[in-house]
Structures are given as C-alpha cells and as structure tokens.
C-alpha cells in the first residue's frame, strides 16, 4: 500500500469527526433495527428530546457543562501526551472538596465568598487527585493510565466510606450529606432570565455553564498563549527535546496533571453547587469517561470541545427521552453510541483517515492538473 498523501488539516479537524459520529450512529442504528424499532424514529425522538421540547435545550446545555469540564481535563493532559482516564475520580473528589467547604462554612459566609471558595476547593481536590498519579508517573515511573484507573476506584471507595459514614446527614438513610444553605447555590439560568424579565422554561442549567466557557478560554490561553503551555506542548511532542531545552519535564508532568485534575474536579460545581445542593453518591455517573470521547472528537481544542460537548449533551438529554417513548430502547443506547464514537475516533482512528486521505489526494491532484492545463492553455 502506498503511503497516503497527508490529510489536509480542514479534513482532519472538520471531516473526520463527522465521519466518526456518522459511523457510530449507523452502527447504533443497525442495533436499533435488530431490536425491532425504527432507527429513524429513535433519532427523531432524540433530536426532539434534546432541542425541541420546552426546557430541553437547557437540559442539553446542563449536560454539556459537565462534558466541557471533563473534556478540557482530558485535552490538557493530552497536550503533554499524558492519558488521564482518571477524570471520573477527580470529579468525584471535586465534589468532596465543594461539599466539605459548604458543610463547614455555609452558615457563616455570604454566597459571594462561599461559592468562589467552594469552586476553588473542588478544583483543588481534583488537582491533588490528578497530581498524585502525575507525580508517580514523573518520579516513580508508574504508568499514568493504570494509576488513574486505580485512583478512580480509590476515589469511589473513599466517597462511599465518607458519605455512608461521617458525612451522612443525621437521621438520613441514603448516603448523602445534608442540604447546603442557599448561600452555597449557583443560580439557575432560568431564575436569572426570569429576574431580567425574560420568559424561560425551568431546567437544571446554571451559572456553571458560564464558568465552563470561561475555563475554555482559560485553557486556550494556557496552552497556546503562555510559557507554561509551551512547556506542556513541548513535553508532549518530545520529552527528551524538552529536557535538553531546559524544561523541567517531571515538574511539567505533575503541573499538567494537577491542572487536568482541577478541571475535572470543577465538573462537581455543576452537579453539587448548581443542581443537587448537597454531595450525593455517584453524581459523576460516567461523565469523566465521556470527557475522553469529547476530547477525542474535539481534537483537544476548546472550540472543538464545546461543540463535542453540545453533541454529547444532546445525546444524553435525547437519550433520556428514549425511555419515555419506547418500551425496548433506553438511555443505555447512548452508552453504546458513546463507546462507538470513542472506538471510531480513537482506536480505529486510522480506518477512515487513510482512505479519506487517498480520496482527497486524488481529488486535489486532479483539480491541480486541471488548473495546470487551463493555465497552460491560457499561457
């Protein structure tokens, strides 16, 4: 097989993700058809559920908020060629940080102080949970993938132990903390809109969405416009070269993992400060893993990550709608689509790249030749 001509950047960034999603949807559609339902009908239900019904867009954006945080987390680590699959555990511990802050201080501090403090605590706890695997990789040579997997389970155990024990609200059966006071709440967007005199349907969408967008800007500045970001990317391209250029690679790895963990930890503010107003068991429900799909789809760029988060937000919200409309297909369908998207855009990444590169190469060279002959005739 001849080596394919390099894929043009616009195709790599724009076309390949679309092809991946399309492939994932086709395979899921086949599964739906085998089950005996109409895949196009299911698709329409999901689209309506995600965008059309009253308040559905708010739900879609609310899910997207989670995915922006966890997607950014994976992407930042990716730039240093670190594969952080510990977003789930880092987000979980972020919820512990936010929860502890609110439990301790919600009767003392006003919202304007408490909420920023809780956000910092969630980022801080997540950062520590990311930095330890970073340290173990940089200084002790353990593999980051394995360590972060283990840290996911460790986080889960710690949270079960605390929420069913020390932190459980007195007189409560379910493993969760007491509800925080109103000072600890991030306001809902529909409340803000109503206060401004705009009519808006109720949804769990809250101010965290704005924080998530700010985080996108922050990551963009960090990676492409800062000295640290340069060091992160240099470490990712070639750790050896970075070392020779005087970049302290071990330190960069630890810092990158701390930033990555901090971003994942901030996912907790959407769930804990924005919606639940208490720390509950299992609030991360796999969103940390979805972040991997989001980062892969979004090509590790904040803009791509926002778009991919919207897609996954729509899938999650639309998927919930499947439960109501069909007796045989449920929201687990979304896990299937998600797995397929990760498979096509990650594991099988080169399956479409090569043929597409050949195809585009052939088309482009044909056009070049045509331009050439035309130019020749004119000249």
């Amino acid at each position, binding site marked *: 097989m001849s080596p394919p001509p390099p894929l043009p950047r616009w195709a790599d960034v724009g076309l390949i993700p679309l092809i991946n999603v399309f492939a994932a949807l086709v395979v899921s559609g086949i599964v739906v058809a085998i089950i005996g339902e109409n895949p196009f009908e299911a698709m329409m239900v999901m689209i309506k559920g995600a965008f059309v019904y009253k308040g559905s867009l708010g739900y879609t954006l609310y899910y997207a908020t989670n995915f922006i945080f966890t997607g950014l987390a994976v992407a930042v680590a990716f730039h240093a060629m670190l594969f952080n699959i510990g977003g789930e555990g880092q987000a979980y511990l972020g919820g512990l940080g936010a929860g502890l802050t609110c439990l301790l201080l919600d009767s003392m501090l006003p919202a304007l102080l408490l909420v920023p403090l809780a956000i910092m605590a969630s980022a801080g706890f997540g950062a520590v949970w990311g930095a330890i695997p970073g340290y173990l990789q940089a200084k002790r040579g*353990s593999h980051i*993938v394995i360590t972060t997997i*283990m*840290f996911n389970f460790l986080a889960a155990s710690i949270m079960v132990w605390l929420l069913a024990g020390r932190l459980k609200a007195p007189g409560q059966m379910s493993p969760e903390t007491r509800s925080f006071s109103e000072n600890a709440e991030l306001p809902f967007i529909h409340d803000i809109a109503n206060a401004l005199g705009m009519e808006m349907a109720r949804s769990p969408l809250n101010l965290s969405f704005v924080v998530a967008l700010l985080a996108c800007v922050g990551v963009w500045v960090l990676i492409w416009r800062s000295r640290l970001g340069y060091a992160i990317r240099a470490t990712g391209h070639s750790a050896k070269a970075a070392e020779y250029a005087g970049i302290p690679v071990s330190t960069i790895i630890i810092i990158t993992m701390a930033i990555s963990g901090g971003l994942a930890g901030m996912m907790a503010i959407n769930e804990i400060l924005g919606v639940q107003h208490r720390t509950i068991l299992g609030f991360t429900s796999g969103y940390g*893993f979805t972040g991997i799909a989001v980062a892969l789809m979004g090509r590790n760029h904040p803009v791509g990550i926002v778009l991919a988060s919207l897609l996954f937000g729509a899938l999650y919200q639309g998927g919930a709608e499947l439960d109501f409309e069909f007796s045989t297909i449920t929201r*687990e369908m979304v896990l*299937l689509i998600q*797995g397929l998207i990760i498979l096509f855009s990650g594991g099988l*990444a080169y399956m479409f790249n090569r043929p597409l590169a050949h195809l585009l190469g052939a088309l482009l060279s044909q056009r070049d030749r045509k331009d050439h002959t035309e130019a020749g005739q004119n000249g």
Partner: protein
Amino acid sequence: MADLWLQFLLTIDATLRVATPLILCAMAGIFSEKSGVIDISLEGKMLMSAFVAAAVATLTSSAIAGMFAAIGVAIMLGLLHGLASITLRGNQVISGLAINILASGLTVTVGIAMFQQGGQTPSLARAERFRPIELPFAEQLGGIPIIGTIYREVISGHNILVWIALGAVLFTAFMLTRTRFGLRLRAVGEKPEALDSAGVSVARTRYLALIIAGVLCGMAGAYLSTAHGSGFVREMTAGKGYIALAAMIFGKWQPRGALLACLLFGFLEAVASRLQGVELPLIGQAPVDLILALPYLLTVILLAGFVGKAMPPRAIGEPYIKER
C-alpha cells in the same frame, strides 16, 4: 475453636470462588500484554460474555452452549481490539476503553430488548448452570479433623470452571515458558523487530494472543453469570476486570505471581463480605469499603516501586511498524 476453624475454611472457600474470574481474566491479560498489547478491555469482554452466557443458556437450556457462545463473543471483541491496535495501529488504551463502554451499553440495551427485565436475564434453572461437583467421600472424610474438613469445605463442592481457572494458570505458565509459541509471544512483547527478522509474523502472534485471551475472558464471564450467579445482572462485573488487571500487574506479569495476587484480592473481598455490618473491637463498624479498596491501593504502591518493581513488557502499547 472448631467453629473458628470452620469460619476460616469457609472464608478460604469463598476466596476461591471470588478469585476464579479474576484468575481467568488475569491470565487473559498476561497473554495479551506479554505480546505487547495493552488490554484494559478485560472488564468489557467479561461483561459481554457474562451476558451472552446467561442469554444463550436461557434460550438453549444448556450451560455449556452458553459458555461457548460467551467465548465466541469475547474472541470477537478481542479481534476488534486487535484490528484497532495491531492492524490499524490505533491507541490501545482508547480502544480498550471503548470496548468497556460499548459492553456496558450493549448488554443492557440488548438485554432489555430480549427479556424485558430491565437488563437482567431470567433466573437460570439448575440444568442451565454449572453445578458444584461434590468430590467422592467428601461427607465421610469430613469427620477427620483438619485434613478432612479442608477436603470437605475447601476442595470439594466447586464447579468445573474453578478447576479450569486453576488449570489455566498451569496452562499459561507452560505455554509461556515451555513452548515455541510462548517464546515468540514473549519476544514479540519485548523486541518485535527481532521476531520479524526471524521471519515470524508479529501481527499473527499478537492476534493469536488476543484470541487466547478471549477464550479465557469468555470463561470468566460465563462463570459470573452461569456458575457463581444464576443469571446476568446489569454491570455485574463491577470492576472485576480492572481488579484482574491490577492483579496481573501486582503479579509482575507472571502466571504464578498473578495467581497469588488474585487469591489475595479474592481473600480481601471474601473477608470484607464476611465483615459486612460486624462490630470490631477498637475500630467499631468494620471499614468494609476501605478493605475493598486495598487491591487498588496495593497496586498503586507496587507500581510506584515502593515495594519491589513491576516491569511491564518493553514493547507494550507500541504498534509494530514493519521496516522495509
């Protein structure tokens, strides 16, 4: 005293039962990773085969048919992983993760469509499960102190898959160290170009390793749903694939070490389930959740080189690109 001894024996017995799927999966992991292919899809392969084993056992009323179907589906997932990581040279971790998520979604989706029980399969009847095998004279010899009780409580009364799992350890050790295939398998994980220059196909060797891993994962899944349990429950692997992965690392990618690690992790789980809700002197309520977290913690400590050093195969995770 006799009662304490019996309690101890019952815990050892439970350890074997809990460790069986871990042992099978850890051996699968050894085959895969020794050949240079990272395999975090043990979890997904086991989950998928647990579902298929239970579903097919229900439909055909045969546990054996269920197991073979489970092996088939685990091999297919292994080949998918191979396509991604060997042929297309994609990222092996991502491919494995995708298979795990895929299995989570697919088992529940298909389960609901097939059986309308919220993702479970119907409860299996006796004939559709692997039954315990009572060894001869277990009851009569059980009267003999120590040896007899060990024979009755620990050795007798396991189903065939427990024995197969223990056999799989011998099989793995034999294959890796005593056969030509095993030599090639280890070489392909350490220095694939050496094998390539000797005229042996790197891809073929790795695919074969993944197929063997599929067979072992398939049996692990079948054990969960048709021997240990009596039917498939959604997410029934509950991280066991990752514990097996941890055990494999803990055992330094060696069959014997991995076996011991699986038994240790199995023992911790058996102890934890015995201590559920028990009040202990000094510490009060037994911290079951923390005991269950020990395998992960121990693996992190070992990997960090604080106790011994676990070295993975050198070429692990790297797709092989043939030089021309």
